[in-house]
């Protein structure tokens, strides 16, 4: 049998030629975004403006419908929503200079804004919004609840266009509370404790938990601390753990848990109990109240501001916006901002209504005046007005990357604090503080 084989020299030549060819093809300069835009503007083809969006948000709010409507009303633009969370890919694309996506979300400022700005993922929006020709461009900034705008900003620049906000609220079963003799919302910790005791007594045969927490720093003790202290944050941007009011918050939390007014540790298995209708109240995001309404009936759950340590004490509540940003080196930054203004801006009443119906609280004052306050179909969402007022009077959380650091120290030590009665609130607070500061020290680039 005869084999026709390459000589080593031929093989090496073929390999070298192929490699050089592939390398040349790979090194060919990509068309600059401007060029692509120029060709698109001639009418030959639409500009494809891609937005990377978290899947949970796509399922919750009608972004797809907005993209379709915008694309239909703009002959030269096609908005594509890609359901993904791959910001590492975006960072890599930015580093390479060729970026496929123009928009990115969902961004929760207390978790993401510093890291997204520092890593160069997103860019400021003020100038892009200022020159947007979409209806309601400037209203998007002026009409936004000022504290929500502050939350979406970093170093005096707006980086995120929020479409809704979340705040920590007291979500409660008004039917359970009323039957236990407490038809009104508890406004202070003492009222909350008294109501919880009565609900426990009332619901002991049904194994009802009078209250619950969601197992995160902001929803649990963090919110208690903001409800107690006028200035809950230290100059370092940490929660003021060692303040007298913070220690009282820890003690109050332990009292609720130890007296079995909550699930074990305050939050163990709370969600399954909540689903089964065995939780009478939960201090958590306002959307949890809407989840309760969806599960057990609109008339069963009420959402109100959290109880404060004393009447009218504290710095309001913890809150944050859910929003989208513009990717650095985006191929179509103006177009994507135009879409944000069109879709999420206060002029788009249909989208605002969809946001409200999803249980999220809108970010524009005008939405409250034009929809929630006056439209009969939205009467069941009037509780949102109190949330708007609550957030208006609240401080944004500090702009840093300390949340998860504190959260991890907190969830570790709060369990020890609950399980070991010999640990005092001072010791617990000090341990959370020390662990957090130790981790923050590690974050310093040497």
């Amino acid at each position, binding site marked *: 049998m*005869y084999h026709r084989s390459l000589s080593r020299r031929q093989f090496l030549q073929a390999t070298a030629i192929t490699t050089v060819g592939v390398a040349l093809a790979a090194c060919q300069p990509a068309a600059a975004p401007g060029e692509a835009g120029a060709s698109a503007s001639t009418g030959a083809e639409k500009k494809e403006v891609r937005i990377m969006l978290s899947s949970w948000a796509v399922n919750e709010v009608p972004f797809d419908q907005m993209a379709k409507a915008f694309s239909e009303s703009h002959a030269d633009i096609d908005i594509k929503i890609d359901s993904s969370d791959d910001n590492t890919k975006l960072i890599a694309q930015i580093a390479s200079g060729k970026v496929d996506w123009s928009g990115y979300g969902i961004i929760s400022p207390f978790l993401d804004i510093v890291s997204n700005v520092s890593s160069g993922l997103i860019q400021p929006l003020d100038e892009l919004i200022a020159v947007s020709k979409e209806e309601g461009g400037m209203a998007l900034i002026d009409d936004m609840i000022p504290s929500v705008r502050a939350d979406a900003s970093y170093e005096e620049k707006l980086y995120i266009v929020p479409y809704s906000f979340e705040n920590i609220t007291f979500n409660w079963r008004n039917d359970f509370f009323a039957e236990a003799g407490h038809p009104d919302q508890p406004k202070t910790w003492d009222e909350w404790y008294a109501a919880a005791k009565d609900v426990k007594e009332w619901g002991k045969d049904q194994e009802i938990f009078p209250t619950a927490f969601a197992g995160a720093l902001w929803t649990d003790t963090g919110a208690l601390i903001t409800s107690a202290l006028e200035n809950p944050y230290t100059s370092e941007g940490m929660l003021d753990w060692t303040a007298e009011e913070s220690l009282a918050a820890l003690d109050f939390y332990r009292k609720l848990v130890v007296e079995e007014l909550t699930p074990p540790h305050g939050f163990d*298995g709370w969600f399954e109990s909540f689903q089964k209708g065995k939780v009478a109240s939960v201090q958590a995001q306002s959307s949890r109240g809407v989840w309760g309404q969806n599960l057990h009936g609109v008339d069963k759950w009420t959402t109100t501001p959290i109880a404060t340590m004393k009447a009218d004490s504290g710095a309001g509540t913890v809150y944050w916006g859910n929003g989208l940003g513009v990717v650095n080196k985006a191929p179509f930054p103006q177009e994507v901002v135009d879409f944000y203004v069109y879709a999420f801006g206060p002029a788009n009443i249909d989208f605002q209504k969809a946001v409200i119906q999803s249980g999220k609280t809108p970010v524009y004052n005008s939405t409250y005046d034009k929809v929630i306050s006056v439209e009969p179909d939205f009467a069941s969402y009037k509780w949102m007005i109190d949330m708007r007022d609550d957030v208006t009077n609240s401080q944004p959380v500090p702009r840093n990357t300390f949340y998860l650091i504190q959260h991890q120290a907190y969830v570790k030590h709060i369990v020890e604090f609950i399980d070991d009665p010999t640990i005092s609130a001072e010791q617990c607070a000090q341990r959370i503080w020390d662990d957090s500061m130790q981790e923050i020290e590690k974050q310093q680039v040497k």
Partner: protein
Amino acid sequence: MASFPDVERAQQPAPQRSAWAEFFYQVRTLRSQKWGNLWGYVFVAPALILYLIFQAWPIVRGLYMAFSDYRWIIPATHGWSSFNGLDNFTEMWADETFWTSLGIALKFTVVYVPATMLLALFVAVMISKVKNAKLAGFYRVVSYLPVILPVSVALVIWRSFYHTEFGYLNYFLKSSLGIAKPPNWLGDADWALWSVLIAAVWMTFGHQALLFLIGIYNINPEQYEAASIDGAGGWAQFRYITLPMLKPIFVIVLVLSAGVLGTTVEVLVLFDTGGGPAESALTTGLYIYRTAFAVGDMRMGYAAAMSLVLGLLSMLISGVVFKMLRTERA
């Protein structure tokens, strides 16, 4: 089989060459023999290129990152300038959380690996005894189901099982055994790791059972017949035929299990808080994930250094397993 040119070359009388010419001829021949048929390289090239891009390069990059202060959200630390020598390893040496998490991971691995293996072996042996082919197939499918069950579904099942107030397990303990205060399986630091471990064993043993079953089916039945004639009972047959013949499978199973040392198992999502109550289930893998992708500046350099140490430990364990269970085939 030698190709025609080789045969022709062999049949020709060796030409007279000078010493230098002879030397270069020998070198060329040697290289030619060494390279073999060059088309082979063309065929392996796609796999090799993919391996280099997706395996070799990440390893090299990970190695570099392990010796740097690479922080995801600080682009200035992404280049060569962030090289910091052994700083990450010095920090790791003094990092209490790292050692605690490694201890938890070791504890998990030491129980998880034998538990999974024994359960898998038991199930495989039981299935192999089933004579009815259809029934055996049914049992094989049932034992493998937890492996292919979506993780989210498995987690819902186990959370419902372990729920402290309304879980099936505590309901049984309360109603049937009269235990008034049954454990808080996922919320108590003493129970949490073991509760998760049971779920992890359930979710993975099917894969190992299948491997053992393949090994058992490959054992010549005549060996069992011969042993039976010699008077060997069931246990003796298992002890002296099945177990030794499954030695290569044990090697595979143990080496694959060495990766469990990191224990980034999905079942850890069972907890309301990341590392379990009071971090009682914070394994090294979870700590590495947290360092690299969640907390603060996302210190991927330090996380890579921890991963390197963990990888070396896993390699060491695999090496020991190979050494101890060396067979003709594995």
